[in-house]
């Protein structure tokens, strides 16, 4: 068993010990989804069935919402002394962090599955074939991986578990200022431009096009570039912070 696998098992046990956190990270996106699709969505004219429009954004929201738990967990490790035990053992330096990233991805997968399940129950009928679904899965996992590393870095940099949890709030808010809920061109000036150029919009557009069975190559390539960039920044930032904090 590799060091990373051992650390992943540890993180996974932590998650299982705290089912309320998992429930919370699944429940919140589902509630938002039901609220927008059932309660508010009827008022939005987006050209297609609203549940079809909203689901890709909700997948993104589900990923982001789970991140605060990751940031808090990473920071607890750093501030509660156990990290020093790992550091003075002949253990791969990145294993602790990799464990957190993969655990974060696993809980993301659970939340995404729940969102997609609820979407189907609400009448979501995507046109995507097998290739489309594979593309959606791949992109969602890549997104989860890259924001996972970014969140690990956030968690490492924060002073306490509480501030680490708060640090991920912008990531939770970002989907609301993207084309997740309504198209960017329906937003006010300033917000519209922000929504258009922020990384989540092309990712949502890519997911939307893949689910609709009409892949938007530009959006997919832009998404891949954003994900790679976020992952790289997160990874470098995380490793540097990890090595600096004794």
């Amino acid at each position, binding site marked *: 068993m590799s060091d990373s696998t051992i650390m992943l098992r540890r993180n996974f046990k*932590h998650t299982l010990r705290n089912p309320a956190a998992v429930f919370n990270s699944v429940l919140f996106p589902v509630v938002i989804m039901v609220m927008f699709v059932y309660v508010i969505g009827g008022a939005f004219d987006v050209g297609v069935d609203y549940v079809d429009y909203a689901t890709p954004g909700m997948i993104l929201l589900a990923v982001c919402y789970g991140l605060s738990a990751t940031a808090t967990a990473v920071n607890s490790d750093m501030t509660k*002394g156990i*990290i*020093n*035990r790992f550091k003075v*053992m002949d253990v791969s330096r990145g294993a602790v962090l990799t464990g957190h990233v993969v655990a974060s991805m696993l809980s993301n997968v659970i939340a995404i599955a729940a969102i997609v399940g609820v979407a189907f129950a609400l009448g979501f009928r995507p046109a995507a074939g097998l290739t489309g679904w594979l593309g959606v899965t791949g992109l969602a996992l890549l997104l989860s991986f890259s924001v996972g590393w970014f969140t690990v870095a956030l968690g490492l940099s924060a002073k306490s578990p509480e501030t680490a949890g708060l640090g991920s709030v912008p990531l939770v808010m970002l989907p609301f200022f993207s084309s997740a809920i309504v198209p960017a061109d329906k937003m006010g000036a300033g917000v519209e431009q922000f929504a258009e150029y922020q990384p989540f919009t092309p990712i949502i557009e890519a997911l939307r096009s893949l689910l609709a069975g009409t892949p938007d190559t530009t959006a997919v390539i832009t998404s891949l570039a954003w994900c790679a960039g976020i992952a790289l920044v997160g990874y470098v930032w995380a490793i540097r912070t990890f090595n600096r904090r004794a």
Partner: protein
Amino acid sequence: MSDSAIEVTGLRKAFGTKVVLDGIDLHVPAGTIFSLLGPNGAGKTTTVNLLTTLIRADGGSARVAGHDLIKNARGVRAAIGVTGQFAAVDDLLTGQENLQLMVDLKRAGSAVIPGLLERFDLTGAEQKAVATYSGGMRRKLDLAMTLVGAPQIIFLDEPTTGLDPRSRRTMWDIIRDLVAGGVTIFLTTQYLEEADQLADRIAVLDQGRIVAQGTAAELKRQIPGSHVRLRFGDPAAAEAAARVVPSATRDDDGVTVRVPGDGGTASLRELLNRLDDHGTHAEELSVHTPDLDDVFLALTGRSHPATEASTR
């Protein structure tokens, strides 16, 4: 491996402009207990952090278990076990799972777990989350985790600070057992008694410098012995007492007299008889045995800062 477990030359560390370790030299033979004695802020934890590869030195060199600290940090890590001041345990896991985690990471066999639980008196609590453990139990679990994989050299940073007297004795017994099994112990403490009880050699650390190094007996020779302190009702009585007991010295307050002694009952009885014979009666008597404060006074010419703050 040579018979030297830890060899340190000119180790230096500063945090910003504050010099924490100002060039220390240490030599710890394999299979012995070495104690680094000093008050809070002397640099004890920094020394442990440097020697266990947690932080990097600014200067000097060190070999731990025959491996160079800088060039072969992994070799050092594979040979050592560390129990710091604050229990490095995973609160969300059970005691058993914490030990299993160490077994997995050190590629050791799970067969050691029941023995460790029993040795540290944790049998029965192994299925409970560590978050529910008492401070003493956490310390014991922490040390049990350190022992997984049978490290050659064990660093213990103030292992008994905050423990009740009974747990402290248990910890001492465990440390003695470890050394009997061939392990080298590097122990930091702020208690002279602990160093005295356990250590083969003691180094006294003060403000980042080693001010004395030797066996407990060697160090004690540098410390003034125990003395009896007598307080009298008025300066005249104190003066009279000082006259009849030639070795006595008078304190500045004028009513207190110090008489050096060996701490035994025979010399105390002799002193009291002598006072009685001359019709002098003290209002209060106290026996003062040497403590860290005396060591510091003797070695550095000033009082132990921590003691000073807490007793005055």
